[in-house]
């Protein structure tokens, strides 16, 4: 089997790169944390990397460039200015791109998500991730329901309607669409099967705060692009990779999973399936 190469982008202020790389390594892929400068060639020859050599690009969470101007704005402008064409080629080949938390903000700022173009120029921003309604940094576990019918490469291994528990940690995560376009865009997202995760309460109802930590419109927690190869989500799947990362793990009933015909205790948490599905989708597609 081919070893897939994962590129985890790093600049000043990103976080959880190590968790993300360990998650992919655990699943048998080869993950590398790459600084943006290595991709644009502003380093010594032996440290240079080429984006096209990788199979998956991950933009991790954190506070890139100190969240100055707006969360994700500076990193988005830097990527657009220096790596724009490479990223466009990378996406055109159908390779998956994952944006977690701050990475989601970057993808939205770059105009890659939601990525449809009903009436505006391509590459223009259509939605925004803005300050939480609570005006606070919300850092705690959230429940998100999988809504995608199978378009998104990262969630094909997750049953539609299942509820996953993942921690969120952000101050600017409110999914926002301008009022006059709201209905039209939501309808567009629904028809295109682009809404991947929505915040819910334990019964699976679309509930307001505190279940929806930031006041997102339509309880949206994560969306993909029309082609399904770019996923952005606010909660951190890498922080829920193992079941024991859950704060309630010692009190929880243990899940079971079949591995090589043998039923064992499921050591993985809700976030693992996202990484696994991405790797499986690539191998299936033969990219």
């Amino acid at each position, binding site marked *: 089997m081919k070893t897939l190469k994962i590129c985890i982008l790093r600049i000043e202020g990103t976080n959880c790169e190590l968790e993300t790389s360990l998650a992919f390594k655990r699943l048998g892929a080869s993950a590398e944390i790459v600084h943006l400068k290595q991709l644009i060639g502003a380093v010594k020859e032996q440290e240079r990397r080429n984006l096209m050599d990788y199979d998956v690009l991950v933009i991790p969470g954190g506070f890139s460039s100190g969240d100055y101007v*707006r969360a994700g704005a*500076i990193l988005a*402008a830097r990527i657009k200015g220096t790596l724009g064409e490479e990223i466009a080629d990378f996406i055109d080949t159908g390779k998956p791109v994952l944006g977690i938390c701050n990475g989601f903000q970057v993808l939205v700022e770059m105009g890659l998500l939601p990525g449809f173009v009903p009436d505006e120029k391509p590459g*223009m921003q259509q939605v925004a991730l803005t*300050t939480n*309604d609570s*005006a606070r940094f919300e850092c705690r576990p959230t429940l998100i329901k999988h809504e995608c019918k199978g378009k998104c490469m990262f969630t094909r291994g997750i049953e539609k309607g299942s509820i996953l528990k993942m921690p969120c940690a952000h101050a600017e995560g409110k999914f*926002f669409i*301008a009022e006059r376009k709201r209905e039209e865009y939501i309808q567009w997202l629904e028809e295109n099967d682009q809404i991947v995760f929505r915040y819910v309460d334990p019964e699976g109802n679309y509930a307001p705060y505190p279940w929806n930590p930031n006041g997102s419109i339509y309880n949206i927690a994560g969306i993909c692009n029309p082609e399904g190869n770019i996923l952005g989500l606010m909660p951190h799947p890498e922080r829920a990779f193992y079941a024991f990362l859950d704060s309630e793990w010692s009190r929880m009933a243990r899940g079971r999973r079949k591995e090589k015909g043998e039923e064992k205790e499921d050591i993985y948490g809700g976030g693992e399936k996202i990484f696994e599905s991405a790797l499986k989708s690539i191998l299936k597609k033969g990219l």
Partner: protein
Amino acid sequence: MTIEIDVTIKLKHGVTDPEGENTKKTLNLLGFRDVRSVKTAKTFRIEIEQEKGDEEKVMQEVEEMCRKLLANPVIHNYDIKMVK
């Protein structure tokens, strides 16, 4: 010659401003009962090196800066003002 330009980024009408709301609430609590609303804005003071008489070009450049980085068209309006 350098000129100074103030770029003020404000939230569009209809976008909630939680920071402003909270500030208003606190001001009310502190006894400033006449405060009806507080809105937050962000100002960038930008110094630009330019040749004399090229002000129009500079203004266009600042517009572009707003579009490319400083403002988010979905939620922000911006004001550009020359200081000196």
